[in-house]
């Protein structure tokens, strides 16, 4: 297993090595030591390898990830797994703002809490947060699923499109055009699968579902006060 010690090796070198891997590489399991909160660690991966980061990561860790599995054993800075296309990112600590922002696919699991704007403009990603999330999460969320085992802050799902939100705890307030919705069988199935994939210990019936009232999909002057 390749081990890259960032106390000795530059981040540029690490990312260049990871980008140079071919899809059929034998070096499928990497470990990064002494990350020291550096930014853009393991960003732009495009092969099915696993990268373990032994500590805290800075901004945009695993940004734009495709296919790879990235495990952050500490906390993650702003925009972890931003614009992820596929693969899996697992934060064992807490995540800062804009976790999973604009991501199109893959699974982001955060064992701790996530700060504001978690899942902002998400476009297909699945996010499971085992703790709580901050305000303005799932803002303009287009598609994908956000599951929160703890509480959600103010203005959850503001201006949401077709993303699905499941929250087990308290929602401080819902944003414009976001409403609580009926939990049907298909939603229970989806939630069950995601909880299982994330290794989360919770029952589907403990959650409530939120989504778009679709009232702001086409601008109308009578809705101007909603903005």
């Amino acid at each position, binding site marked *: 297993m390749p081990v890259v010690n960032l106390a000795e090796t530059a981040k540029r070198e690490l990312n260049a090595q990871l*980008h140079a891997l071919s899809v059929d590489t034998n070096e499928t399991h990497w470990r990064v030591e002494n990350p020291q909160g550096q930014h853009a660690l393991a960003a732009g991966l495009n092969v099915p390898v696993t990268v373990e980061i032994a500590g805290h990561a800075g901004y945009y860790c695993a*940004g*734009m990830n495709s296919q790879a599995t990235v495990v952050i054993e500490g906390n993650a800075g702003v925009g972890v797994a931003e*614009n992820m296309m596929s693969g899996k990112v697992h934060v064992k600590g807490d995540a800062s703002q804009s976790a999973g922002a604009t991501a199109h696919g893959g699974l982001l699991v955060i064992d701790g809490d996530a700060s504001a704007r978690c899942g902002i403009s998400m476009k297909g990603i699945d996010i499971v947060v085992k703790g709580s999330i901050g305000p303005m999460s799932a803002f303009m969320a287009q598609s994908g699923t956000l599951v929160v085992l703890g509480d959600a802050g103010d203005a959850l799902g503001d201006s949401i499109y077709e993303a699905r939100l499941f929250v087990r705890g308290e929602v401080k307030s819902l944003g414009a055009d976001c409403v609580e919705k009926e939990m049907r069988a298909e939603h229970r199935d989806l939630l069950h699968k995601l909880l299982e994939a994330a290794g989360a210990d919770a029952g589907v019936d403990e959650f409530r579902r939120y989504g778009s009232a679709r009232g702001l*999909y086409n601008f109308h002057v009578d809705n101007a006060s909603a903005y």
Partner: protein
Amino acid sequence: MDLKNIPHTLPRFSATFDPHTLAEIRRAAATGIYDIRGGGTKRKLPHFDDLLFLGASVSRYPLEGYREKCATDVWLGTRFAKKPIHLKIPVTIAGMSFGALSGQAKEALGRGASLAGTSTTTGDGGMTSEERGQSQTLVYQYLPSRYGMNPDDLRKADAIEVVIGQGAKPGGGGMLLGQKISDRVAQMRNLPMGIDQRSACRHPDWTGPDDLEIKIEELREITDWEKPIYVKVGATRPYYDVALAVKSGADVVVLDGMQGGTAATQDVFIEHVGIPILAAIRPAVQALQDLGMHRKVQLIVSGGIRNGADVAKALALGADAVAIGTAALVALGDNDPALEAEYQALGSTAGAYDDWQEGRDPAGITTQDPVLAARLDPVAAGRRLANYLAVLTLEAQTIARACGKSHLHNLEPEDLVALTMEAAAMARVPLAGTDWVPGNPQGF
């Protein structure tokens, strides 16, 4: 007194409440919604027309028009990028989205730019295969909405443009109205068909110049430091915005004046926010010079570039290149008088048609209607654009040679004078026939 013979006062329109203003009040009262339209500002502004070149005479000698070389090439992205861009001409095609424009129009822009040896630029909505296929040099816009944004396209691009704002609406997002959301547009943007698509005004995962520096570093890491990174701003506070873009690690700054067009924005925003490009170039260049980065971080300016004189004037004020949008669409066939009957049917007239948001463009350019879009032949339209780009270049060379310059980049403010005090103050060149430059050059 014979009342019949008293002279009548002629009906007089108010300069304040002119017919356009009155019509807008009535339209607002009838609909309860602001006017949305495409294009840039239509008001009269201090512009490049207010500047003149001095030309060579006894004190300076010119270059021979058809024999002595006047080079036009430009390098972009030489600061950090491993693969900077080399363009044959300093006129690029500005960012315009597939969605706002038809696939045929995007293809035509790529064809025309490639024939002329310059770059074209994607827009909100992502990169289409036609566009990538036909564009020799393609700049990929990285926008707040991130519609269609994916790392594969990022890696296929020749440069990346982080869009913070645009001249038509600095500080504003956008709205692609439902009537332009075809199946393909909806799919590229991960949204249902037929709904209004809001484009955010702020990036979702960074705020402010310190974060921008980290974002640019991420884009460089993902693309292995190969591609030039541009930062595009709408002209408002150009001195500070350019300085902060340089501080954030930009290779190239794109500065768009309020004449720059948009696909669809509130008329009140287009006409009342931002500053003209003439007023923005010198502060931007000053910022680069103060940081010792002029010509190291390249400056592309846009907003109202129409002819080779505008190109030459922008470069003389210190820009490295210009970008065109509206003029490029006109070269493709937008607002063609040959379509007058159809513009009339839409309640407009050729030359004034700006309801691009409705998607009913008879020229087939600002539409997603397959029947209308099919009217535009991308090969012929691309040829027209290439011809137009050639003329812009030849005109700029003609002026540069007359000023004794062997490269367009050798044009300088000292070659210019202004016709008005406003233009003299904004461009910081003397009023014609005087040595007077209004204002304090230090006072930004």
